């Protein structure tokens, strides 16, 4: 499916909100969404949730022969897949640009920064090395895929244990997990990507954009850092023009954020380690009972409502009365309502002689709505069964009767407040009210007949 385009009013709304430093979910400019990390039963499997964006990461390993020009180093392979369940716009053939960009960014962030010691993956130089493969799947797209994916990748790598192997002369023995405990990978540092979204040609900046904000952004700057404040990767994308001090400022913010996220990751890893050691239950299956992974829970945000009444009263007292133009729905018959004036109804044959009346009828509709501006000092008179009768209406002050639908009905039994067009609407813009009215919605011939009768 093609992505549904963002409507102009939504785009304007988002941009205006950003100009006023407000975000849709109530975060501050530099706030991250909640990050949740959960592990599966196997070593190396984890799910990372950044707000509603979900990425599943799985690490696996294999003994292969090394690349010819790097005989003593292991091989690292990263693959991020945008699953079709993540967003309706993701289809097997359509994603190439985004996919290439994300994959290359991940590769550069994790491989070029040498976060994993590839030399320790070497078993027999030139013959057998470990090939570590990190597969990431995006399960739900709610913005900022790259951050979630980088966290998932590094968490999965930290969590992973490879089988132990020993070399004696020419013999290589691969031990199963039962024989010897699997060995963790040697990880030097944990690079985490932080995304900055720029709006209005670089004037406004947000950290961790969600999906709506990503749609209206001008461009993205991704900075990958580790907790030692070393920058692993910088990538600007989207055609924004940056200034040097903007980049420096972003790198400082990224430093702070990365520290927080690294702490969270360490804690999550320790917790999982503890649970496994104590023999407790772990894995995704456990989370079904506690509804952690398999449910979308909207968290309740605590709001202080203690002084809402006072505040509301203050606001109402200070506010001016609302403006006069109000479009109340006019209920023609049960089930048919009219809001607004519309253009003249051109149904029915028009002869020259009747055109004037046609015009008059056209303005009737306008008057009906004007009548809504009446104050309540309106006289209502009962009407006999047939025929027209009118009551004069005081055009008093222009106070608004808020939002009461005006019901016009053909029924002769009920007694109700009904509006009827004035006899000579061009002369006086006064409104008439009849208790009952035979006016049918846009039945022009009927109207004309009534007019003629009235004129007679």
């Amino acid at each position, binding site marked *: 499916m093609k992505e549904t385009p963002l409507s102009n009013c939504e785009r304007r709304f988002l941009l205006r909100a950003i100009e006023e430093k407000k975000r849709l979910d109530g975060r501050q400019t530099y706030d991250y969404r909640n990050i949740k990390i959960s592990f599966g039963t196997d070593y190396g499997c984890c799910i990372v949730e950044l707000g509603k964006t979900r990425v599943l990461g799985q690490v696996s390993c294999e003994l292969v022969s090394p690349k010819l*020009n790097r005989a003593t180093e292991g091989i690292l392979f990263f693959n991020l897949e945008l699953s079709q369940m993540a967003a309706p716009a993701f289809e097997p053939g359509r994603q*190439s*640009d985004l996919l*290439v*960009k994300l*994959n*290359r960014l991940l*590769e*550069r962030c994790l491989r*070029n*920064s*040498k976060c994993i010691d590839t030399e320790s993956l070497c078993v027999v130089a030139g013959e057998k090395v470990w090939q570590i493969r990190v597969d990431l799947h995006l399960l739900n797209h709610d913005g900022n895929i790259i951050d979630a994916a980088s966290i998932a990748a590094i968490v999965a790598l930290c969590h992973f244990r490879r089988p132990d192997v020993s070399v004696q002369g020419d013999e290589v023995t691969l031990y199963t997990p039962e024989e010897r405990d699997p060995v963790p990978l040697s990880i030097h*540092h944990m690079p985490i990507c932080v995304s900055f979204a720029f709006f209005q040609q670089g004037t406004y900046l947000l950290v961790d954009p969600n999906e709506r904000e990503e749609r209206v952004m001008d461009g993205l*700057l991704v900075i990958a*850092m*580790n907790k*030692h*404040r*070393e*920058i*692993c*990767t*910088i*990538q*600007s*994308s*989207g*055609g*924004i*023009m*940056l*200034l*040097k001090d903007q*980049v*420096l400022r972003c*790198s*400082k913010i990224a*430093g702070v954020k990365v520290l927080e996220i690294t702490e969270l990751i360490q804690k999550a890893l320790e917790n999982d380690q503890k649970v496994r050691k104590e023999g407790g239950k772990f894995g995704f299956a456990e989370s079904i009972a506690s509804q952690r992974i398999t449910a979308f829970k909207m968290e309740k945000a605590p709001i202080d409502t203690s002084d809402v009444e006072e505040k509301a009263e203050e606001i109402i007292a200070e506010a001016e009365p609302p403006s006069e133009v109000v479009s109340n729905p006019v209920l023609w018959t049960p089930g048919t309502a009219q809001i607004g004036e519309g253009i003249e109804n051109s149904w029915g044959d028009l002869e020259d002689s009747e055109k004037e009346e046609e015009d008059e009828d056209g303005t009737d509709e306008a008057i009906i709505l004007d009548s809504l501006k009446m104050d309540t000092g309106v006289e209502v008179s009962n009407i006999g069964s047939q025929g027209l009768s009118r009551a004069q209406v005081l055009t008093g002050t222009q106070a608004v009767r808020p939002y009461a639908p005006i019901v016009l009905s053909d029924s002769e039994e009920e007694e109700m407040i009904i509006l009827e067009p004035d006899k000579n609407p061009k002369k006086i813009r006064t409104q008439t009210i009849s208790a009952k009215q035979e006016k049918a919605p846009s039945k022009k011939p009927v109207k004309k007949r009534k007019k003629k009768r009235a004129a007679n």
Partner: protein
Amino acid sequence: MAGLELLSDQGYRVDGRRAGELRKIQARMGVFAQADGSAYIEQGNTKALAVVYGPHEIRGSRARALPDRALVNCQYSSATFSTGERKRRPHGDRKSCEMGLQLRQTFEAAILTQLHPRSQIDIYVQVLQADGGTYAACVNAATLAVLDAGIPMRDFVCACSAGFVDSTALADLSHVEEAAGGPQLALALLPASGQIALLEMDARLHEDHLEQVLEAAAQAARDVHTLLDHVVRQHVCEASVLLGD
């Protein structure tokens, strides 16, 4: 290569340059008669060729046409003989796709696309010899080619790479310096306003050194701009002489 000193005690690099010195740049515009614009650039041993077609009607699906701007389409290809080992896939692999995307991003920001709505501008870049700084050479070649085609741009787009060794920032890295594994920064700059069109960095660099490296790259890009400006003016002089003005 262990033991290779990238920066000697006297401040000389492997190829004898100083820390902030660029390699020798030679460029020519209008190398192909068929294309709307073309340029060839040599930055040291890195040789890149750029060809521009456009603005012309959108090829392929009309649906891709943008109602208010031109579409910029970039393709990057590096020849199989461009690196030390023969490359098996000249284009279509992820790195080439990424380069194409980055070039497109750079030029979409620089070209005044609002002047040519519903049309397409194609930029094809071919690397003939890759000796470090391929992105920078591609951007510089493409800038000259776009100028040769007469497509209006906000400003020159000048790019340069920079690295960091022994607390010194190096400008315009060669392949040897890139392969050593230190931090590398590629920067594309619009010199007049100092705006950064693209910024890309790899490998670990401490945050405190970022400013130094950025400044070195920006200065190098401005030096490249002086050279490219000279090339363009010379080309215009030659062309006007040939036209008999």
